[in-house]
């Protein structure tokens, strides 16, 4: 059989279109490189930032927070009312919202998702964030009532977090244990495609999405067709990926590279100081080796946060002496002058006086107990550097801290055990209440209260702060908790990290959205320059 010339032309055309199609599609795809993966993508079973980053894109929350981290905006609910006693919240859902599989969203899905959050059977480490729930019920298909037993001034803010993501009941039940591992049916601007743990998470545009929060410029479906969240553990590799255009956007750029990236003509760096992210090392206060508050205080004095901020992070971060930023809501300014700052001599004197004597290898001991706390940290460049710097500082006062690093996929479960004496962690928050309720409630042992800080006074004050109906009571309750835990030296605060997002100039300017440190939030406004 012979082909006519016409046929050949058509063939060439077809071939060229076929060749061009992936090129066009590629133009609407981005790869985001990041340091670690999450252990799962179940909103109630992971507290990882890596999970929040993807969940914000896969699903929606009832209400949302604007990039200023202060103003509440619409989410799946277009409006809401709060009863005068602060106990009943009524949410009115938007019409025409559908899940990724096309099924329409109803109030039942909202009720089921939020009830699962607080259900003791879920044993969610973040259940406290939902307040003291009496019942969440559907009044009709588009109205949800959320009833509390005590007022919770932070409820609406907490409902904007990824933990309050609404998802499809049927698919979640069908997936069972695999929910958030093999699939997730949400209402977000992107849909789950494929997750290869510790490698990549691929999500695709939801073409029907028209119910995004009103503060976004884009009120339709996302501009990007496909997003690949790629795990790249090495800092340098991430930096190079961005410079060479293998990745278009990331917030995981090392401090050392920021100046260089700013000077790179094809890369733009934006910064946000609107929310807080603090790095610290915590003590398991009931472990023999760190049970003595003097030891913990001395270790606080030994660590040189300023040197760390300057030398390891090139001045891009702010040294921390307080457990939460001194600029955060409800910080107790009385503590400003009492914070433990770098003073090696004082630390050594304190340990001498407390009877901790140096052995032949320079490590102190008392009654046969050597000061060799075991610290669990995340594997990866950030914690490797921090932990080694702390280790060297502590060695100066005769504390021989031992470091054990775990990959993020196992670290979370190892950090829920009682095997270690110290641990490295970092966390996002917007206020004292947000941070303190997370870490210092007795019921939050063994995780996220990995310190085993069990104190009735703390619990009472936290409850008082959480249910306070006026600003003064809330601030003073949280202020007292701050005083208690700082005095007990339960942590070594290390540094406060602002958010940097670096993106290639092929992309339109990005507005950082610092909620839970997720940076890119829904990704609705992410787009390439025309």
């Amino acid at each position, binding site marked *: 059989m012979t082909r006519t010339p016409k046929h050949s032309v058509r063939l060439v055309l077809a071939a060229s279109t076929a060749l061009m199609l992936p090129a066009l599609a590629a133009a609407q795809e981005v790869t985001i490189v990041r340091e670690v993966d999450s252990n799962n993508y179940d909103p109630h079973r992971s507290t990882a930032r890596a999970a929040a980053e993807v969940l914000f894109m896969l699903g929606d929350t009832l209400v949302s927070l604007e990039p200023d981290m202060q103003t509440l905006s619409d989410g799946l609910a277009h409006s809401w009312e709060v009863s005068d006693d602060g106990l009943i919240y009524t949410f009115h859902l938007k019409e025409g919202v559908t899940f990724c599989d096309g099924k329409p969203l109803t109030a039942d899905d909202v009720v089921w998702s939020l009830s699962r959050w607080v259900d003791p059977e879920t044993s969610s480490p973040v259940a406290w964030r939902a307040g003291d729930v009496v019942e969440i019920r559907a009044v009709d298909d588009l109205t949800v009532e959320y009833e509390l037993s005590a007022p919770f001034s932070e409820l609406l803010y907490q409902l904007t977090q990824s933990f309050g993501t609404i998802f499809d009941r049927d698919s979640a039940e069908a997936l069972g244990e695999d929910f958030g591992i093999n699939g997730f049916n949400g209402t977000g601007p992107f849909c789950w495609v494929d997750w290869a743990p510790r490698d990549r998470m691929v999500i695709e545009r939801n073409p029907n999405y028209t119910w995004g929060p009103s503060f976004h410029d884009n009120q339709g479906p996302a501009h990007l067709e496909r997003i690949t969240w790629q795990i790249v553990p*090495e*800092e*340098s590799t991430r*930096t*190079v990926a961005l410079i060479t255009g293998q990745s278009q956007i990331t917030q995981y750029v*090392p401090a*050392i*590279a920021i100046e*260089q990236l700013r000077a790179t003509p094809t890369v733009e760096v934006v910064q946000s100081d609107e929310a807080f992210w603090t790095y610290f090392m915590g003590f398991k206060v009931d472990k023999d080796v760190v049970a003595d508050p003097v030891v913990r205080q001395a270790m606080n004095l030994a660590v040189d946060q300023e*040197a760390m901020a*300057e*030398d*390891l992070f090139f001045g891009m971060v702010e040294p921390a002496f307080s457990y939460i930023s001194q600029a955060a809501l409800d910080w107790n300014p009385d503590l400003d002058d009492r914070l433990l700052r770098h003073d090696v001599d004082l630390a050594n004197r304190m340990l001498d006086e407390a009877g901790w004597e140096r052995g032949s290898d320079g490590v102190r001991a008392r009654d046969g107990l050597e000061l060799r706390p075991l610290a669990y940290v995340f*594997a990866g*460049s950030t914690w*490797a*550097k921090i*932990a*080694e*710097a702390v*280790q*060297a*500082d502590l*060695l100066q006062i005769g504390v021989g801290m*031992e*470091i*054990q*690093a775990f990959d993020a996929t196992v670290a979370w479960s190892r950090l829920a055990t009682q095997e270690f004496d110290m641990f490295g962690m970092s966390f996002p928050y917007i206020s004292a209440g947000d941070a303190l309720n997370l870490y210092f409630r007795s019921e939050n042992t063994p995780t996220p209260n990995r310190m085993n800080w069990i104190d009735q006074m703390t619990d009472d004050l936290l409850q008082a702060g959480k249910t306070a109906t006026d600003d003064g009571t809330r601030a003073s309750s949280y202020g007292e908790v701050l005083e208690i835990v700082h005095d007990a030296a339960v942590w070594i605060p290390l540094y406060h990290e602002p958010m940097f997002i670096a993106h290639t100039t092929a992309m339109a300017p990005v507005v950082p959205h610092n909620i839970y440190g997720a940076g890119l939030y829904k990704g609705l406004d992410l787009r390439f320059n025309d």
Partner: protein
Amino acid sequence: MSTTAEIDTAALAPRRRAWWQLLLADRAAALGLLILALIVLGAALAPLIAPHNPYASSRAVMLPPVWEARGTWTHILGTDGQGRDMLSRILYGTRTTLIIGVVAVLVGGIFGSLLGLLSAFYKRIDPYVMRLVDMMLSFPAILLGLALVAVFGPGVVPVIVALAIATIPDCARIARSIAVSVMEQEFIEAGRAVGLSDRALFTRYLMRNCVSSIMIFISLRFGQVILIGAALSFLGLGARPPAAELGMMAAQGRDFLLFAPHIAVIPSVAIFVIVLCANIVGDALRDVLDPRLRG
């Protein structure tokens, strides 16, 4: 049949002195040996000659080596990301790396050769031992290291154990093949005939006739073991911080590759030099000692 035994017994005595001369006559080998000796000496004397405490960090981070613009004589090879002196860390790191390599190769070599010799000596255990060795051969050393570290936690000892286990099968194979040919010799039969005990036959006749060939193999293996050990440490399975180990130092330097390449490059070069020298010397040793190659 030309045999090792004949050559060994007949020709070794007059040539014994020439052994060293032959080795040193090979210029590459002589140079390799000299460098290796210097490295071993430096590592052994590390606590005496290191200019700084290898674990003490300072505010002078990422200082370049002395031959670069901002370099200083205080830190000849510069400092790492934590402000620790690179030269001191290289000396201590080489020490750890060499200890891992030497201990692993000796332990693995001894166990492996014994297994191989016994298997050749006692024919009835031969099939079982060799199938076991086949099984061990199918385990890559890195995988074995990962498994051991998963069980015992990271540290120098699990890495040594992993490397030793990885050395056993190769050594057993080689030792067996050498021993099998020795076992066919008449003097073994003669020994049996005069009623020598198994033990005497094994140690006095079999082992002595195999040991030099096995030593050559072990010396050749040394470079590989160092390399795998460094790879395991690079993966974060070996020495734990603040201890220094060359592979681990190279890994720590990765983060600074774009800004202070010396932190990763210097330990990598050190590994390269050690392995290269070990291989050259091993090769030369084989040329000099292996009777079959000497013809």
